[in-house]
């Protein structure tokens, strides 16, 4: 009996940790899910609007929070055509080159053999107890902003959802840089030297308003997922770099409704969460062509004539963008740490790009707390310099605190250009130099 149990456990472990025999066909299916047609739903068509009057009909293709918002009349969803967001061919090629090399370790947060590309391109299975974790790895090592990109500028607006009052407007620059898992921008697959084996850097600089001007944040994420991020904060009025403890990573970022951990849909360690795959489904998500959307001519003006996405709905908390019916993976991440301020997030991961356009956050009691949307814009219908970059451009976000009836919205000018984010941006010294 004991032997039988042992063999069973060993087999389970082997199945869980070793690579499935992912094939090139798996890769094709993963990166080009709409090659042979786009999903459909009875009664749903591009150009229509889902509102209070017809929301019940489309409940099946809405996530629970969006359904509640529409039902309450807080917002409406305009439906757009489903389009393919092809990621850059270098990332697809890297996925193929690493097929069958990638293995999960024994414990969550452990992985081996992932050099670049999507680690687990095969279709996830509900029978695989670690399928959620694999999808999380696909997100972490995804082509989210490519090898590097910048959001310059990036407007965050704090709004009272009840009254619509605009309370604060913060203007940022954000920069992202992958040190490893690089596929397109030289050097590939990694920047050296890299003594601490960093995976990714995120650098944030506040431009306005005056009370937080020159506040800067640097997050250095390690290749070793079991190691906590190094996070540094530079406060302009102190002119000093301060280390951040992880408590601040799960705290309101500069008073917004967004935690540092919320960035991009999830900005933390795989090992901080227990990941559970809940299934694949077709769902309406905010993915669109930026240049075809209603734009906000007031918030941002520049010489290129670029304008950011407009917001509307209750309290101006919702981006005025179209939603596509797309294949998503529903994954739950529940925090391992019982002191974490949330109990779980419900992620709706876009199956083609592995971006996370929709999230629902639940508080410690298990009640719905926050709703996260991050609109993904097709790079070929955005800034001219983004054309052909194969990056789903983060373009407009909203984090709605459903309990406090408050929201933080984000309007982006995302630019995929390596010159904007040299590796020197990701150093502690850069905080001092830029903040001086």
């Amino acid at each position, binding site marked *: 009996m004991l032997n039988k149990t042992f063999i069973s456990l060993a087999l389970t472990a082997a199945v869980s940790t070793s690579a499935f025999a992912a094939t090139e066909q798996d890769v094709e299916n993963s990166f080009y899910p709409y090659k042979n047609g786009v999903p459909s739903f009875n009664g749903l068509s591009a150009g229509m609007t889902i509102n209070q009057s017809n929301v019940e009909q489309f409940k099946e293709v809405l996530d629970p929070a969006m359904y509640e918002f529409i039902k309450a009349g807080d917002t409406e969803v305009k439906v757009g055509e489903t389009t393919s967001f092809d990621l850059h061919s270098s990332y697809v090629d890297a996925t193929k080159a690493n097929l069958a090399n990638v293995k999960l370790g024994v414990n969550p947060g452990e992985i081996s053999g992932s050099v670049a590309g999507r680690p687990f391109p095969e279709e996830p299975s509900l029978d695989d107890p670690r399928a959620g974790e694999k999808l999380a790895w696909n997100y972490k090592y995804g082509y989210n902003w490519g090898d590097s990109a910048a959001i310059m500028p990036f407007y965050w607006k704090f709004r009272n959802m009840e009254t619509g009052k605009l309370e604060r407007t913060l203007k940022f620059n954000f920069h992202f840089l992958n040190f490893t898992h690089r596929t397109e921008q030289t050097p590939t697959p990694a920047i050296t*030297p890299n003594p601490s084996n960093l995976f990714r850097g995120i650098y944030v600089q506040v431009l*306005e308003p005056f*009370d937080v001007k020159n506040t800067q944040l640097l997050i250095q994420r390690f290749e070793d997922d079991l190691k906590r991020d190094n996070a540094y904060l530079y406060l302009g009025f102190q*002119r000093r770099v301060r280390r*951040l403890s*992880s408590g601040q990573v799960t705290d*309101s970022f500069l008073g917004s409704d967004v935690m540092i951990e919320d960035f991009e849909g999830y900005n933390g360690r795989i090992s901080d969460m227990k990941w559970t795959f809940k299934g694949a489904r077709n769902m309406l998500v905010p993915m669109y062509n930026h240049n075809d959307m209603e734009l906000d001519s007031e918030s941002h003006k520049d010489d290129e004539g670029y304008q950011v996405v407009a917001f509307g709905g209750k309290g101006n908390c919702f981006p005025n963008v179209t939603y596509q019916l797309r294949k998503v993976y529903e994954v739950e991440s529940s925090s391992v740490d019982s002191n974490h*301020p949330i109990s779980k997030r419900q992620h709706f991961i876009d199956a083609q790009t592995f971006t996370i356009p929709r999230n629902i956050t639940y508080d410690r009691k298990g009640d719905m707390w926050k709703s996260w949307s991050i609109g993904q814009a097709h790079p070929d219908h955005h800034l001219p310099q983004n054309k052909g970059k194969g990056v789903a451009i983060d373009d407009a976000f909203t984090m709605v605190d459903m309990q406090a009836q408050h929201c933080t919205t984000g309007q982006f000018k995302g630019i995929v250009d390596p010159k904007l984010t040299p590796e020197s941006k990701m150093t*502690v010294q850069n905080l001092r130099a830029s903040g001086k």
Partner: protein
Amino acid sequence: MGVTAMSLGFSATSVAADTEWAGFVENATYVRDGVGLSKFRNTAQAEFSKSLEADGWSNVSINGTLRATYDGVYDLNDEEFGKDATEDYLGANWHDQDLSSTILLPGTPLPCENDPALCKNLDGYMDQDEDEAKLPDFNDELDFIRELYISADKRLDNGDILNLSFGKQQVVWGKTDLFRVLDVINPVDYSRHNIYDELEDIRIPQWMLTAEWRMGPNEVFDDSNFSIVWNIDKFRPNNLGTCGQAYRIIDAGCFFSSRIIGGGPYVINDVDEHDWSLANSQVGLKWEGVYGDATFSLNALHYRQQLPSIHTSGNGAAPVPGSNFGLFNIHFPEVNLIGGSIDYYSMNQDAVWRLETSFTQGEEQPRDAYGYKKTDMFRYVIGFDKNISIPELGTRSAFLVSTQLFGEHILDHEVDMPNEEDNWIATLLLKGFYVNNRLSPQIIIAHDFGADATAIAPSIEYLVDDHWKVNVGFNIKEGGDKKFPWSITGGAAGGVQTEPLARFLNGPIGVANQEDEFQMSVRYSF
């Protein structure tokens, strides 16, 4: 400036962008218990940055900060502060009268308004007139120019970056709040609000040239940077506040403008000024970097002590009533400092430890019988920062808890030094965030163990919107009861004396024991 820019090897060829401006206007109104208005400071500050293009250089910019301050307290409460302020005895603002304070006369407020001979003695140091007290940014040193410097990067062939900055600027070393260990390149102006204003606002900018060699990561370090700072400005000491001003740390200003009773000599005979010369310039070196979970710096600095050291004047002549003869000369000795700092993030504690330390040679400490003694000094700060979630207090945002223990060891201590051989000051900051961080209560507590003195400063900051900010708080101090024998009055045998030496022992918190205040500031920023 243009000549300097050329000499650095670059010249601006075209303007790259419009000038960016930001700034604020602010009123700070403080009311002191038993005194009334103690501050009615109105500040307008503008900051600008202008990017330039220069062949072979990048990130070229001219940066400046201009500030104009008018403190109306000297007009609105002129009985307590200003040239007509009077005290019953020296130190009446912080201790009871005793034998020592009957030998020394009360300090002369703003001596350059009231006593030309004393003004001459103090020439160059703590000799503000009333206009300078009201408008402290407008003086001979052009302090209304808080900063004005040009900065540029040069990318070296190996990818490293060389940054040069020249101009009037603040150079910040160290990581401590309230008290300084390594952050000693710029002197500070304690007359603005004792130790309690942000150092950013009270550092006295200096004309400096800095060169930074940013090496970035290598096989060992994640970041590495070597910098040289050359302070070519004329030496300026800390401003401790002239007698008659509302804030004069350890009441030094009134002691310096006091004299012996009966027309006896002044306390201060002369101030040893240091003219501008290359030999008088100050130089610092710093190597800093990141190694794993630790950020570190190693520092070395040759500078002048920014606190005054009192030497007996050496004039053996008998004091002549009415003359300007004084007992002591103020000196600012040369000091060599070596030190370092390290931040370490403890994953197990989910907290950050900070350690900062310095060892100096050349500093001088006051003594009773011998005036002063040169002694090596060892200082350190251990800091601990952690974020704690306390949902019972009605917010999901974590509270910031920051504690520091500031230690000072006098290596060549003598029993007649009015300072402990070892002393510590502990600080605690507890800060919370409500209403999307727009409402932020905090409390700062500082305790000086040697002085047995405590400051407690609770406050609430409210951000009305992107422009308006209101801060309301209290600043309460206790302590200041320490005595120290003064040989002039019979020393230890003569009982317990406060003046003049116990001010050092009681420190900035204890000597301010009667400066309990309600404080409110309103700021509009743009």
